[in-house]
Structures are given as structure tokens and as C-alpha cells.
């Protein structure tokens, strides 16, 4: 009699534990997905701004064909990577695009008339604002991934996570993160 009650209590506690853990993991994973859509939106906006920017610069510096091609290709790669949905591939493509854009702006520096064009100013301002937003979206996303992954790895959630088929999410790392690492000093 007493043992039955004890057993029932244990089963109920176990069931409650299972339900709350499962729901918590679902909530955390949902937050990661929502945060990812923020990044997605901002990346798309960035991609949308680039063709106009290239056209505007072309009007003043038509012979810098190599730079334009590099930017256009990098953008196409980034759009393709965006369709894949893999944070790692996307980050890689975005980094290449950032590099290409940097050389585009370096080229633009050499054309003072271009710097005075309102459309160019607006586009580069918009691009800077969008990149700022990507940075914040990335922070929010990575924070949510960290919370989720930590929950997956801590005991006893890790056992259940395996049973229910929850897997770790990838961080979204862009180039400026790497640049902030300890600088390498070479003596040679």
C-alpha cells in the first residue's frame, strides 16, 4: 500500500520533469529560430542594396570592371548560400561579400564626384545601417544559440535531449569576430 503511493509519486514527478524539460527545450529552440529570421531579413536587405550601389558606382568609374564583377559574384554566392540555410556557409559567403564591398568603397574613394552624389551617400548610409543591424541580429541569435546549446549539454537535460532528438544549433560568426582575436606578432 505504502509502496504503491511512493511509486505513484515518483512516476508523477518523473512525468512532470519530462514534460517541463521537453517544453523548455522546444521554447529555447523556437527562440533560436525566431532570432535566425532577424538575421535572414537583414541579410536579404543587404543583398538588395548592392545592385543599385554597383550601378551607381559604375556610372562614375566604368573601367573598374574587376571590382564590380567581384562584388556581383560575391553577392550571387551570398544569395545562394542564403538559400541553403546553413549558418556556416552563409557566414563564409557574407565574409567574402564584405571583403568585395570593402574594395568597392576603396575604389569609390578615388572619385570625388561620386562622393558628392546623393544616391551614393544614401546607399552607403543604408548599407552601413543594415550592417549594424546584422551585427545586432547576430548577437541576439548567438545569445539564444548559447542558451539552447547550454541547456542541451547540462545534466540531466542532455540525456533527454538525446532521446527526443534535439541537436545543437550553429553559431553565426562573421569576420569581424575573428579580427578581434589576439593579434599575432611575428619576429623574423
Amino acid at each position, binding site marked *: 500500500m505504502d509502496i504503491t503511493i511512493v511509486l505513484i509519486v515518483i512516476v508523477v514527478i518523473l512525468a512532470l520533469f519530462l514534460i517541463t524539460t521537453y517544453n523548455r527545450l522546444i521554447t529555447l529552440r523556437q*527562440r533560436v529560430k525566431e*532570432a535566425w529570421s532577424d538575421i535572414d531579413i537583414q541579410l536579404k536587405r543587404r543583398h538588395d542594396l548592392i545592385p543599385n550601389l554597383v550601378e551607381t558606382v559604375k556610372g562614375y568609374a566604368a573601367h573598374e570592371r574587376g571590382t564590380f564583377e567581384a562584388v556581383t559574384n560575391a553577392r550571387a554566392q551570398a544569395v545562394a548560400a542564403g538559400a541553403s540555410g546553413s549558418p556556416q556557409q552563409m557566414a563564409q559567403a557574407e565574409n567574402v561579400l564584405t571583403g568585395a564591398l570593402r574594395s568597392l568603397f576603396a575604389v569609390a574613394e578615388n572619385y570625388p564626384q561620386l562622393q558628392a552624389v546623393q544616391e551614393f551617400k544614401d546607399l552607403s548610409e543604408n548599407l552601413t*545601417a543594415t550592417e549594424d543591424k546584422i551585427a*545586432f*541580429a547576430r*548577437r*541576439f541569435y548567438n545569445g539564444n544559440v548559447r542558451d539552447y546549446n547550454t541547456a542541451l549539454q547540462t545534466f540531466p537535460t542532455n540525456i533527454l535531449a538525446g532521446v527526443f532528438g534535439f541537436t545543437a544549433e550553429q553559431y553565426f560568426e562573421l569576420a569581424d569576430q575573428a579580427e578581434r582575436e589576439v593579434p599575432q606578432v611575428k619576429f623574423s
Partner: protein
Amino acid sequence: MTQSPGQRFVPRVSMYDAQAQNRWRTVLLIAAFTLIVVAIAFVFGDILGGNATAGIAAVPLAILFSAGTSLFSYFAGDRLVLAQSRAREVPEGEEKVLRDVVESLAIGLGIPVPKLYVIEDPAPNAFATGRDPKHASVAVTRGLLETMDRSELEGVIAHELSHVGNRDIRVMLLVTVLVGTVALLSDWLLRSMWWGGRSRDRDRGSGGGILLIVGLVLAILTPVIATLIQLAVSRQREYLADASGAFLTRYPQGLASALRKIAADPHVLAVANKATASLYIANPLKDHPFQFDRLFDTHPPIEERIKRLEAMG
């Protein structure tokens, strides 16, 4: 919960924990408000009607009134506060820097972009209000836009958006409107006591009953009002918003420098009053003519906030 000034910053209370706390606070707040109004109505009815039956008869009315007031503050309180502060909504395309900063930080916090308002006043200050992140507004003064550089503006906006994300704005808004209503009702009650008390004297021919009732009312009201004020002036909430704001921008110096500028500014914000003061990022009233006022300070001392922010860097 208390943090020593020199402690390095660790985000110990997550946004989601703060939200849960604030849900509880909201329930407590409305319950306390209803209780006070019912108590006031009972005493009111008792005095005017001359017996306890009239007092009890007034209770359903009181509950209806509290429900109405709570609903009103919940759904329209933000518009009331914004109108009272003479805040003007920023049209699309204007105040580009402010909009960019707000949009970026809202993304960083994972909340929708709140509506933007500007108060045409030279005193630098800002507040956020609304019932939840989907119905939130951020108001900044012209003085803030003119005196702050981008990182300082980011610091201030990050503090305000943290209030939005933590659901502090709902509690702060309810406190503002409900405490204002209670103050008004108590005032009426005290006035009517002199009037109603006299007619009662004629009926019963005793003055001792009034004193008893006054004592009773004060006994009921004081602790509840004290709790309300405690909710209103939660200093921990300001420290937390400073900390989570600094965490959001990854640059505590921005907000520290903004607070320093606000503290040094000689202007007094004309549109702020005792009821709305607790909403602002820094106390807009500034003057403390009596030491007694310190009890009702809505904000932790600004020097202490700056010190804590600098300790994070």
C-alpha cells in the same frame, strides 16, 4: 540581489526572469489597487450612508471602478502619459540617426521596433512606455538628441529598450496611473470625511467614531501604499536596465557618459511631474527641497549608477 559597486558585470537576471517577475508584480499591483479602492469605498459609503450596509453596497461599484481604471491604464495609459508629456510621434523618414539606433538595438534585443516620440524640450531625458513590446513607445527629448553623441544615444536607448524587453514598462505605467488615482481618491475621502462626519455627528452625537475611522483607514492604506511606492521606485529595476542596456551595446561607457551629461545639465524638464517622473531614465525634477523627498526618490543616485557602469567596462 544587491551588487557591490566594484563588482564586474555579470547579467545575472535574464530578460525572461525579469518578465516573470513583472507578470507577478502586475497581478499584485492590480490586487492592491482594487483592495485600496474597495476600502476607500466602504469607508466612503459608511460615512455618507451612516451605516455599514451602505458601505458594503458601495463595494461592487468600487470593484467595477477599479476594473475600469485598470483596464484604462492598461490599454490607454501610454497615450495618456505621452500626451501629458507633449510628445510628438516622429514621422517616417525623420530623425534618421535616432531611428537607426532604435531599430538596431531592438533587433539586438529581439523585440519589435517601438514607436518613436520626441519631446521638444532642451532638458536631456528619455522614457519608454506601453503595455508590452508590441505596444511600446520610446520618447526622447530634443535636448537628448542635441547633446548626446551616437554611443551615448545608444546607451540611453538600450536602457529604455531593456525596460521594454523586461516588461518593466507595463508595471511602471500601471504604477503611474493607479497610484495617481489612489492619491486622488484618498484626497476626496479626506475632504468628504469632514463634511460627512459632521452630519453623522448629528445622528449619533459622538465624535469618537470619526477618529476611529480615520485611524482605521490610515492603518489599512499606509502599508498598501507603501508597497505600491516600493514597486514604483524599485531601484533594482533601474540598475538592471543599466546593466542589460550596457550588455546590449557591449559599451557601458556610452551610458555612463550620457548619465554624466544628464546630471550636469542645468535644464529642468517642464513637462514632467511627480506621477511621470519615475518613467524617465534620470529623475527629471532634480530639486530636493526637503530631505523627506529622498524617501520617494524614483531613481538610484546617478553617481552610483555611473560608478557601477564604469566598473563593468
